[in-house]
């Protein structure tokens, strides 16, 4: 660090050092902020869609949107924290004696107020976003209730079984027609499990003697993984099955094939 910079960094008492935005440390912090913000935005935008499994339902799309956009919204705030920390880190003093005394800034009320107001605003955005999505899902589920396909899901140590009441078939794979809302009634035979059709982006616990309900609307044809997301004992890791989101025609023929074998999937 050269001398004139130090002068700029640490003004002596009573001395004005020009406008805030002209200060070297402020400028450097700004560029660091821009860097971190862009990195976080790009990571959020690119990484989640890349990592997360194929989106097969409206709900899963909603989840992925939240992951991406929350990252983008929080990037500027995280950027400030990291930029200031990095700026001070670059100014480090090494050696066995303490550095010279810094500037005695006890507090800065406008900064505290702006920071708090900013974080409250950010919170409200997150909350409103979440509530709107929840409300949209709930309204849609209520509207769809007449046309939706019902599947009764039972978790037992350590497998899943499905019963389609309208079709009167018992299965151990979860096949669903595309673009038709589904209602899952979930229950457990023993301990708690958690029903998780991964690519549909919904999840609910299976409890003994208490039915829980979730809704989803598959929007794309593809392979489904069904997993248990609640530790349920010895073979929890292996409590999984598969399934498919199919076209209506494929689904109908799948149902018929099971009905042909007495309503129980072989």
């Amino acid at each position: 660090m050269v001398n004139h910079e130090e002068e700029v960094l640490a003004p002596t008492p009573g001395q004005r050092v020009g406008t805030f935005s002209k200060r070297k440390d402020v400028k450097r912090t700004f560029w660091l902020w821009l860097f971190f913000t862009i990195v976080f935005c790009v990571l959020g935008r690119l990484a989640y869609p890349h990592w997360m499994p194929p989106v097969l339902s409206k709900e899963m799309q909603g989840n992925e949107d939240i992951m991406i956009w929350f990252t983008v919204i929080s990037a500027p705030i995280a950027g400030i924290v990291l930029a200031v920390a990095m700026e001070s880190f670059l100014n480090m003093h090494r050696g066995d004696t303490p550095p010279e005394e810094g500037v005695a800034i006890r507090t800065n009320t406008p900064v505290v107020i702006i920071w708090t107001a900013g974080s409250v605003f950010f919170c409200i955005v997150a909350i409103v976003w979440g509530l709107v999505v929840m409300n949209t899902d709930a309204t849609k589920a209520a509207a769809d209730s007449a046309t939706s396909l019902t599947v009764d899901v039972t978790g037992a140590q350590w497998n899943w079984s499905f019963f389609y009441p309208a079709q009167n078939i018992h299965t151990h794979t979860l096949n669903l027609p595309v673009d038709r809302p589904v209602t899952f009634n979930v229950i457990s035979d023993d301990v708690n499990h958690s029903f998780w059709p991964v690519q549909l982006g919904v999840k609910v616990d299976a409890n003994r003697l208490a039915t829980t309900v979730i809704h989803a609307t598959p929007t794309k044809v593809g392979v489904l993984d069904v997993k248990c997301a609640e530790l349920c004992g010895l073979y929890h890791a292996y409590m999984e099955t598969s399934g498919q989101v199919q076209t209506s025609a494929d689904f109908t023929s799948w149902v018929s094939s099971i009905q042909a074998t007495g309503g129980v999937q072989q």
Partner: protein
Amino acid sequence: MTTLTHAPASSRPIPNPKKSLITRLHMGTGMVVGIIFCWGTYFAMKAGRDMTDSHNVNKVLLASMMMWSFGFLVGIGALIGPFRWLIGKDLTAEEQLYLAGDGQGVKRYFKYCTDHKVVGIQYLVGVMTMLGAGGTMAMMIRTNLATPGSHFVNPNVYNSLVGLHGITMIIALIIVSTGPFGNYIMPIMIGAADMAFPRLNALSWWVLFTAIPVLCSAWFLGGIPTGWTAYAPLSDQAGPGMNAFLATIIIFALSTAVAGANITTTVIAMRAKGMKWNRVPIFVIGATISVALAVPAFPTFMVAMIQTAMDRTIATGFYDPNVGGSGWLYANLFWIMGHPEVYVILIPGVAALMEIAPVFVRKPLFSYNAAIAGFAGIAGLSILVWAHHMYMSGWMPALNGPFMVTTEFISVPTGLLFLVLIGTLWRGKPWMKLPMLSVYAFIWDFLIGGITGIYLSDVPADNYLHGSMYVTAHFHYTLMGAALTGAIGGLAYWFPKMTGRMLNERGGYISFWLVQIGFNVLFLGMFLAGAEGQPRRVADYAHLFAHANLISTIGAYSVGIGMLTLLWAIIHSARSGVVAPMNPWGAKTLEWTVPYPVPLVNFDTPPVVTSDPYGYGRSAK
């Protein structure tokens, strides 16, 4: 009222109350009596009982474990004080001085010693032991998960590893700052001669000590299948090892209540003259808020454990739906404790770093009031957010919205903590010593932990993420990245006062970078696995997740090697490190005004405080 004039230890006669039982009791007698009580109970209760009935097995085991704990306390002399009070023969001043361990050398660390400095070191060793055990289990977990289809351990052992790693680390992290620093440093920081209740202080440590063998016994009783959350009804169904878990928590909750009452009272009532509330060091504020939050939080966990124990021993049905019970009751009680507990862990670590930052930046703590508002806000909100762990449980989906609101708002006080730290760093030239490095590590780790918490608390995103590895990575970033990092920073900072020697710098640096780089590789890998859809607590996984898990395991080994390096540095420095000056960092809090070894009553003359301890820096105007 007995008055004691303080004189240097060398010129004072070592108290030796002859004929008194307390001189003959120590950890060894405690263990002997504890083992006798334990096995005595075991054989007495086993006789004539049908041991094919699991209820009877649970009854016998639980009673034996609790009697071990009680017997140990009898044998070490913890109950002499209450008994002497009962019969109206209070302990004499000489006996109390003996209990304080003055002049007894290393022996006092193995006795029922009431000196807060001894208790602090006991906690430090205890915490390090627990972290070592928990860390070893973590390494075994990661080894098993290195490749899909690995059979390093079988699923039963794996589930036990997950559960016991969890509970060991949770217990260790709850006490990691408030145990060693809260006991050793904090009373000196506030200018007190000792804790408010020295005997309760010793009690809190030794009660906790008795929990350690009980928890270990879980391994010999078949392990626990439930994870550290011990959800019912899985815990009702679990084998005999579960009893060890229940007994541990019940014992630990007692210890926490006692320690919490003690620390809170000490800070409220024993501060030095002139130490008004706005002059109290921020670490003391943080530690106090943390233990004061723990006092009402842990009894709910204890009730949940007692109910589980009753289901398992006398066939009640709290969690058995057939007779009107519900797993949701357990989940509620558990998380009413569980979420405050997260902040019980977090706050002291952050507060320690806030104590460190001003010293090394040579600037005042930025906005002391914002720091307190942050801690208080977090503590206050933390009791209103528990059901965000239960969004997907099916319990009252209508409440998900309100709980999402309270949970998201925790980011406001949390944001204040960041503001305080970066405000302190702003325009500073930080002295890059070991403690200061932890401040930077904290900022990075907790930022990631905090932001991922924002997704998780949003109900729709939690639909996908709940119960996945993403959650595991998130809370490791907050608990390990923030609380443990804070505690390691605190250890490096206060090591000279606790051992009289400086912590080895080279060892510290190597350890720091190994741990931090390894940690980020480990848990960024785990975020990846979680986003890809891997559930948590699985002994095996699909090939899809292989890369993410291998990355995590490599990171884990780096953390392991780093922690071993730190252990070496600690042992090496404590034995033969550079002798520390009285105030190596040039700090302004009271603990740096006393010499090492710290005298029995800390201060020759009670200190008088005239300002807060953050008067660093040149005037800004």
